[in-house]
């Protein structure tokens, strides 16, 4: 039996210390150990993008990393977007533009587009398309998601 390891991670600004099995995937750690179930687990091989989170400011697939490897890291999940119960402008834009139907891909979509707008506050439609290409959506056909991101950009710039 592999030895459990003590890890400390900061998730959405809150520090957590836990013991984990080395084989514990980061996404399962977030969902089952920290009960942050906003991050979804889909394909478990890095294809669907539903489990995307920010690790030290950059997006990663949390099904392709072990929790033990995140020791000392800062993570942001979809729960980290809203502040004081108020939706983030990007989330509001998703709601306004009907950018979700079943909602399964939404945590991944929000995280990759949040990252995009953080790095590139005024993206072209093509750049938005490229950013969301890594997250599979079976409902919307992507159009509404792209509309939402483009609508959110000026709000996130403070305009």
């Amino acid at each position, binding site marked *: 039996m592999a030895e459990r390891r003590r890890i400390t991670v900061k998730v959405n600004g809150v520090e957590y210390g836990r013991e984990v099995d080395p084989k514990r995937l980061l996404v399962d750690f977030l969902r089952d150990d920290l009960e942050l179930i906003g991050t979804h687990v889909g394909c478990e091989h890095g294809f669907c993008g539903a489990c995307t989170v920010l690790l030290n400011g950059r997006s990663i697939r949390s099904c*392709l990393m072990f929790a033990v490897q995140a020791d000392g890291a800062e993570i942001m999940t979809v729960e980290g977007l809203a502040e004081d119960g108020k939706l983030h402008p990007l989330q509001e834009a998703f709601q306004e533009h009907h950018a979700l139907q079943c909602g399964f891909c939404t945590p991944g979509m929000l995280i990759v587009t949040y990252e995009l707008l953080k790095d590139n506050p005024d993206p072209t439609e093509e750049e938005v398309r490229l950013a969301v290409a890594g997250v599979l959506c079976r409902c919307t056909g992507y159009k509404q998601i792209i509309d939402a991101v483009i609508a959110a950009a000026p709000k996130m710039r403070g305009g």
Partner: protein
Amino acid sequence: MKPSAFEYFTASTVAEAISLLERYEDEAKIIAGGQSLVPMMNFRVAQPEVLIDINGIKELDYIRQEDDEIVIGALTRERDLELSPLVQEKCPILAEAISLIGHASIRTRGTIGGSLVHADPAAEIPLTIYGLDAKMKVVGPSGERTLEPEEFFLSYLTTSLEPLEILVEVRIPVLPQKTGWSFVELTRRRGDFYIVAVASILFMEKGGVCKEARICLGGVGPTSIRAEEAEEILAGQVITDELIEKAGQKAAEAADPESDYHASAEYRRDMTRVFVQRGLAEARNRAKGG
């Protein structure tokens, strides 16, 4: 699915990683970015007893120029390479090829060393490296050695790395200014492994003459290959549409693809011709500064 249980060790130096390999030998697997290994573990295609995590080896994470070479630590993230002004300026074909690997979230974790040692015949870095006179430095218990791509890659997912060796560095000569280059690939969707890909490099001399051409083909065999006879058609010539046409046909003859779920051998061979022609046209335009 979930991975099977394993013992987990971290190494913070290359020497530590090698001594862990010596201790566990065949039971152990090294994890770098994990973007191929973890899916294989999740599906239990890979079930290592011991995982040696080298992400803590900071001495293997660097991109720098030494004389006329770009020197890259094996643990350098694909995302860092793609965004590196040095790589974009001195070896733009590598930056372009890397930008086509999976998606940004994959490249955040994926490393150049991991992609090379995984040796997937449909991966961008192992293909591009064939045209760049790249040298791979590997270290093992009995010292280090340097391997060229033709020595490094043996077959599907197989390199000539010994069980106790680790890839530590890749050295790539800076491309001269005005070098024409192109990386084109055929994929069903953005971010997929390619069906066929072509990396083309045209070294130019005065008067718009191509001094030397490199045409690297991926997806057409157990490793990437150079289409040498096609390259010879272009060497010493001003590159015309007619020569590009001929080179594409010759390159397709060099390809020896197999049929699989994604594409038949015939389709792959014909797309090799098409993509070599497209790639060479693009490389020629870049060489002209267009």
